[in-house]
């Protein structure tokens, strides 16, 4: 069956025109969106690059601070009137480069300028004024090598952190109010409570050299290797009954000395030692040319022992309860600017053990190692410089007791102990 062809009706084309217009409109909207997306993406990329450049410049400033700290003796050579290169182009793989210049910043400071360049040539410039300022550690406990915390102690306060320039190992469940960091590795096998950063691979903590002889101008009395006690004028003090203010001399120390290596000949000879033999000793700054032993409790909250102990050998505190604090300016002649806020300074080890009570306030620093295995309450900070292994009193830095240590970043020490510090900081 065939259908006869019908004549076509006349078409006006309204639908076609409308569809075309709609298509053009949609295409326009689409193209505009794509263009906008491209602009946004470009803006995002620029933002990332700018941020990277800024981070690179900041890394340069941090690096310069450490570099200058390590080169304090040549500080003056950097104080030129025109900029000189301090750190040449240094690449941070995947990020970009930084370079740092340095010049005189006035009043003994250095002006460092760090330029960070990200991968697409985005640049950021930061300037910083670096000064040699008094040493103030970031943390309540700092060790220049490894540190082990195996007790359930509490490190509290705004600067209640711990840092090791070696490895930091934590077992058990100590409470740490700030950071727990290490230059190499951080290992926690217990359930420590760390409020700040808990990690390894962190930046190094600068520690100035602190040794007994650097403080020898500040003592009230020197307890000598020869069993006598001398004042600053070199006048020997009376020793009634062989003791001086409860300090008793022994020509041979009972503190363990370093074991000889295999094949070594004679066992090490012990140095002399001063021992606190009763509880009514003298306040003041005492300089020992020997080992120091404190097995006797002394001091009360109302009447603390006001002292600074400086020892060319080790300090071994094994008393049940010692309440001691550093002299302050309110103590008149007892206060010495040259040992300000130092409680214990030792060229070898410091051991604080068996303290079931007591309270110690001040800065504790050993050129060797520090071991705290009692339950003392302390305010201040502890620094183990790890430069010496001559004493066997403490073989590795450790906090193994129920130490309760608080530090809020105060207790300034003498200004001759300096580290490089960024004073002001500005992004250009």
């Amino acid at each position, binding site marked *: 069956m065939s259908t006869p062809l019908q004549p076509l009706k006349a078409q006006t084309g309204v639908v076609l025109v409308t569809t075309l217009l709609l298509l053009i409109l949609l295409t326009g909207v689409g193209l505009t969106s794509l263009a906008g997306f491209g602009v946004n993406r470009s803006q995002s990329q620029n933002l990332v690059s700018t941020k990277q450049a800024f981070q690179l410049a900041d890394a340069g400033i941090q690096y310069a601070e450490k570099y200058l700290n*390590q080169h304090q003796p040549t500080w003056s050579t950097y104080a030129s009137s025109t900029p000189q290169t301090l750190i040449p182009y240094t690449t941070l*793989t995947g990020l970009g480069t930084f370079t740092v210049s340095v010049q005189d910043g006035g009043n003994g400071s250095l002006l460092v300028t760090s330029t960070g360049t990200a991968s697409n040539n985005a640049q950021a410039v930061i300037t910083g004024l670096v000064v040699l300022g008094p040493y103030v550690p970031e943390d309540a406990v700092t060790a*220049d090598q490894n540190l082990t915390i195996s007790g359930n102690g509490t490190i509290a306060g705004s600067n209640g952190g711990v840092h090791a*320039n070696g490895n930091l190992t934590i077992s058990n469940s100590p409470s740490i109010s700030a950071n727990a960091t290490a*230059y*190499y590795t951080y290992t926690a096998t217990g359930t420590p409570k760390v409020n700040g950063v808990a990690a390894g691979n962190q930046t190094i903590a600068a520690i100035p050299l602190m040794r007994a002889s650097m403080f020898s101008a500040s003592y009230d009395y020197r307890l000598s290797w020869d069993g006598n006690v001398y004042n600053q004028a070199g006048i020997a003090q009376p020793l009634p009954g062989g003791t001086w203010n409860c300090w008793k001399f022994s*020509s041979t120390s009972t503190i363990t000395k370093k074991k000889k290596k295999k094949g070594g000949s004679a066992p090490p000879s012990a140095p002399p030692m001063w021992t606190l033999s009763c509880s009514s000793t003298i306040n003041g700054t005492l300089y020992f*040319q020997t080992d120091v032993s404190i097995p006797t409790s002394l001091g009360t909250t109302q009447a603390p022992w006001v002292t600074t102990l400086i020892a060319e050998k080790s300090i071994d505190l094994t008393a049940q309860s010692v309440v001691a604090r550093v002299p302050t300016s309110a103590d008149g002649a007892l206060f010495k600017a040259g040992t300000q806020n130092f409680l214990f300074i030792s060229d070898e080890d410091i051991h604080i053990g068996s303290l079931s009570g007591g309270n110690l306030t001040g800065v504790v620093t050993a050129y060797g190692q520090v071991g705290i295995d009692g339950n003392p309450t302390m305010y201040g900070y502890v620094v183990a410089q790890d*430069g010496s292994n001559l004493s066997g009193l403490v073989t590795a830095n450790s906090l193994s007791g129920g130490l309760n240590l608080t530090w809020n970043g105060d207790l300034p020490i003498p200004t001759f102990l300096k580290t490089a510090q960024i004073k002001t900081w500005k992004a250009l």
Partner: protein
Amino acid sequence: MYTRLLILSLIALLGLGSMEPAGVNAGSSGGIPPGQQKKLLDQQHQDLVQEEQTLAQTYSQLMDQKRSLLEQLRTLNPKGATTQDWLTLWEDYHQYKVTDKDELKANYKDILKALRAKGVDKHDFKSKVEALLQALEAVQQQQDALAQSWDTHDQKVQQLNIDQQNFNQQNGKN
């Protein structure tokens, strides 16, 4: 260079100083008055304190140099390697240099390869790393020399302890 000179000076100083305690020993049996013996022992004590201070300063400088070199190594791959990784590489490199054993060399090369970030030129990376490792090796040699100086110093301290004990016993201080 400065540190190397300092180390050499130290070794010379330690070598020259090592005869002092024996001199006092000889003196104590040779009838030197106690006052003079005491002065000599005091002087030796001060000399050893000063010597220890110098050794400590040198130790600090060498540690700073070592850490500065490790920091520079760390910048070669800040995202992909830790300071511990670089320390391990350095220790392996040192062992391989000291013993010259093939297996240690292979081990070192494996670690070196693992520390290189993707897209970084192999030869450029190796050249930069080995320059820094060589510098670390030089620091290590100075640290070894310093350790010997500490041992010599320690022997002198031991001798002085004995001399001081003898003096104290002779003078009724036990």
